[in-house]
């Protein structure tokens, strides 16, 4: 690892030299090319995406390190039923060998193919237009774009509000939205096996949306008392879409949906449990309610006690308890405390997730961490809220989880879109925060995050139970970096190796950082490839009609002064020449954008005072590139990079 750190310093040194007059700029560029395409590609465990066919240089021998992204993708594919549960289980059973025994990826690639054909989102359409996969999707093509695909499909299974209601959805259509709606109904409301069997949402399932609407009053269309023949004309309203895509809206709906006579009470999920060393058994849970108890001046009186639990009213309709339980599981999952299945069954994992959240929050208050009180919307949130959120007596085997207080605790782990930044500011801040800790070094940060070794336990969770899920932190609409900042003590312990248990929180932290780095690195490496073609003489090579033939391809090579040579072998067909022209055209259209990107980053790195390790560098690259992404895509006016450099 220390060798890796010195490579980061070399990287900076070469960036610096490129802008020094008479300092051997070409050799620095060549060195940088080697560092980018070999060292960075290997370090970040993602191959350099070939922008042009043919002479792509590095297809890393360490491709097996892409497995994390494959795991993420297959999870979304099975949730949306693009692959069957059997295929998912077969994949899970062989996931450590998928890149050696590639037959287990065949159904996954078929699922990706189907998804891509149905995806209408602009980013994926643009990807398919720019890099046409041809009539048959290959594993190679998918791997080049794995991060983009995994991110794009995530919105259909997330509950963070990142999926906007569709413009023109028709019930029964086999589309991403149809599959997403079926998934959401299964997760929130699997009260019938027929619902569990459905891949897409069809007219036979409208009765479930009506039932859900009856319970949570989500404003769906059709109205609850719709006549049978009117169902044929029924649609799903955008209000309904918005609410089933956003867990916080569902929570809000839940609190105001309970029968009027018992509204504004204190609600809790309560159950008895038996806990021995390795054994944990929870009995059936109940949703109970009571009048909100008065709070004494010291704030130390518990909200729920054994007496109150026993005296509290039971909500007779079991469906409320089931939905409350699912919503709480979803919230715990979304905030990375829970890695189990969202199934309404409350067991050991759910129990421990609640206690993890409770204990972490309580410890922050006891340490005097004031991060909590900064948020205006949580003015009423206090240590008292935390202490009253969970009542548990291990010896007596009883627990009550106050729904409102626990939701408020978990909300602290979520930033709204206004508070978070898509440009990587949060990630940069948390890495900088970590670097200030005395016991944390750049080397340790790199080792912990980039090797991902200790994260395997989280991936393994899915093999035991096919419905078990890890939460992949969505960055679209809400950020969970607030939660990560709160858990920074545990992250530090994990980085220095003192904390062996990998909480979902740590998993989310590592995955989020890696995702950012991958995005930034892919863009940067793509830009570097343009410089390689235009300044370093790397030939632009057209695909051959028959790659097996031992003949020369059509190619073009630019030299340092932009003189160019085209070579067209006598055997070249019209199609091969046209394919080469298309490659040149594609490059010509986007070269300025990518050259701007890469020159800006090189210049910014050359000015760094303290480069840090690979993680730190990757996050910086991401932050610089994505802050200016919108402007970069504008053709006019050209961006004044010098302004950014002052900021960098």
């Amino acid at each position, binding site marked *: 690892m220390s060798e890796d750190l010195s490579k980061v310093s070399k990287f900076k040194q070469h960036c610096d030299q*490129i*802008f020094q*007059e*008479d300092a*051997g*700029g*070409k050799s620095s*560029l060549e060195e940088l090319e*080697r560092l980018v*395409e*070999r060292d960075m590609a290997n370090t970040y465990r993602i191959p350099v995406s070939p922008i042009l066919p043919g*002479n792509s*240089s*590095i*297809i890393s021998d360490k491709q097996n390190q892409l497995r994390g992204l494959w795991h993420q993708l297959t999870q979304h594919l099975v949730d949306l039923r693009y692959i069957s549960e059997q295929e998912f289980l077969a994949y899970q059973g062989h996931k450590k060998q998928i890149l050696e025994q590639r037959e287990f990826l065949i159904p996954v690639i078929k699922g990706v193919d189907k998804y891509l054909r149905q995806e209408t989102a602009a980013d994926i359409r643009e990807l398919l237009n720019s890099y046409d996969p041809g009539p048959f999707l290959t594993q190679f093509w998918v791997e080049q774009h794995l991060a983009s695909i995994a991110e794009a499909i995530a919105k259909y299974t997330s509950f963070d509000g990142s999926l906007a209601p569709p413009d023109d959805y028709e019930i029964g259509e086999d589309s991403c939205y149809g599959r997403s709606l079926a998934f959401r109904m299964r997760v929130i409301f699997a009260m019938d096996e027929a619902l569990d069997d459905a891949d897409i949402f069809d007219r036979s399932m409208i009765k479930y949306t009506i039932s859900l609407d009856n319970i949570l009053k989500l404003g769906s269309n059709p109205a609850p008392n719709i006549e049978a023949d009117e169902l044929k004309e029924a649609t799903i309203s955008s209000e309904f879409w918005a609410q089933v895509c956003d867990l916080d809206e569902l929570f809000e709906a839940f609190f105001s949906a309970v029968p009027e006579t018992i509204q504004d009470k204190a609600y809790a999920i309560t159950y008895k449990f038996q806990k021995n060393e390795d054994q944990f058994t929870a009995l059936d849970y109940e949703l109970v309610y009571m009048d909100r108890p008065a709070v004494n001046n010291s704030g130390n009186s518990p909200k729920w006690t054994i007496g109150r639990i026993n005296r509290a009213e039971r909500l007779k309709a079991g469906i409320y308890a089931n939905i409350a339980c699912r919503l709480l599981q979803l919230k715990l999952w979304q905030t990375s405390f829970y890695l189990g299945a969202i199934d309404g069954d409350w067991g050991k994992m759910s129990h421990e997730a609640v206690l993890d959240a409770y204990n972490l929050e309580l410890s922050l208050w006891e340490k005097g961490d004031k991060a909590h009180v900064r948020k205006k919307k949580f003015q009423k949130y206090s240590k008292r809220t935390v202490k009253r959120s969970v009542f548990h007596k291990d010896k007596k085997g009883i627990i009550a989880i106050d729904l409102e207080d626990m939701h408020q605790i978990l909300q602290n782990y979520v930033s709204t879109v206004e508070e978070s930044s898509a440009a990587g500011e949060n990630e940069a801040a948390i890495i900088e925060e970590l670097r200030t800790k005395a016991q944390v070094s750049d080397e340790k940060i790199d080792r912990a995050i980039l090797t991902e070794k200790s994260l395997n336990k989280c991936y393994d969770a899915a093999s035991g139970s096919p419905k078990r899920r890890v939460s992949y932190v969505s960055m679209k609409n809400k950020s969970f970096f607030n939660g990560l900042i709160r858990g920074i003590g545990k992250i530090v312990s994990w980085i220095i190796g003192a904390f062996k248990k990998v909480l979902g929180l740590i998993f989310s932290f590592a995955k989020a950082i890696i995702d950012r780095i991958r995005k930034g690195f892919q863009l940067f490496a793509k830009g570097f490839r343009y410089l390689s073609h*235009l*300044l370093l*003489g790397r*030939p632009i090579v057209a695909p051959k009609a028959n790659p097996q033939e*031992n*003949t*020369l*391809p*059509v*190619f*073009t*090579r*630019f030299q*340092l*002064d*932009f*003189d*160019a*040579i*085209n*070579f*067209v*072998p*006598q*055997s*070249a*067909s*019209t199609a091969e*020449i*046209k394919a*080469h*022209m298309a490659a*040149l*055209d594609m*490059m*010509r259209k986007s*070269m*300025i954008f990518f*050259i*701007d990107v890469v*020159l800006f980053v090189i*210049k910014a790195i050359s000015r760094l005072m303290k480069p840090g390790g690979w993680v730190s560098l990757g996050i910086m690259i991401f932050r610089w590139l994505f802050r200016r992404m919108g402007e970069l895509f504008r053709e006019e006016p050209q961006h004044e*990079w*010098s302004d950014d450099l002052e900021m960098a």
Partner: protein
Amino acid sequence: MSFIKDLVTLDVVTVTGSMKVKVTDKEHRSTHDVKPKSVIDFDELFTRIEGEVDGKAKLSIVAATRINIDKDTYNFVANDLGEVGKELAELHFKSVDMASKARAEIVARLLPKFGRKEPGNS
């Protein structure tokens, strides 16, 4: 960015012909080399195209273009280009267009903004 060495003329040449392909094996490369198995040795190939062609290679020029700094342009296009003549000519002029655009854009970016020699400072 002094390594951009010659900005006085821009030469683009398109050649066709047959040459033997020399393929190198990854196993024989040093551990620091990043190229995968069975790559064509382009450096050697271009050396051959640029003049040191061995007796067995048959190369002919399809088209050549020189653009001077004052934008004076000289084009040469061979007479008999066979069935793919139209595509060959089109390919040549596309690469001319790309070379001149790339040079103009990169020089505009590198020299005034990143170089040390700002106008009036030299």
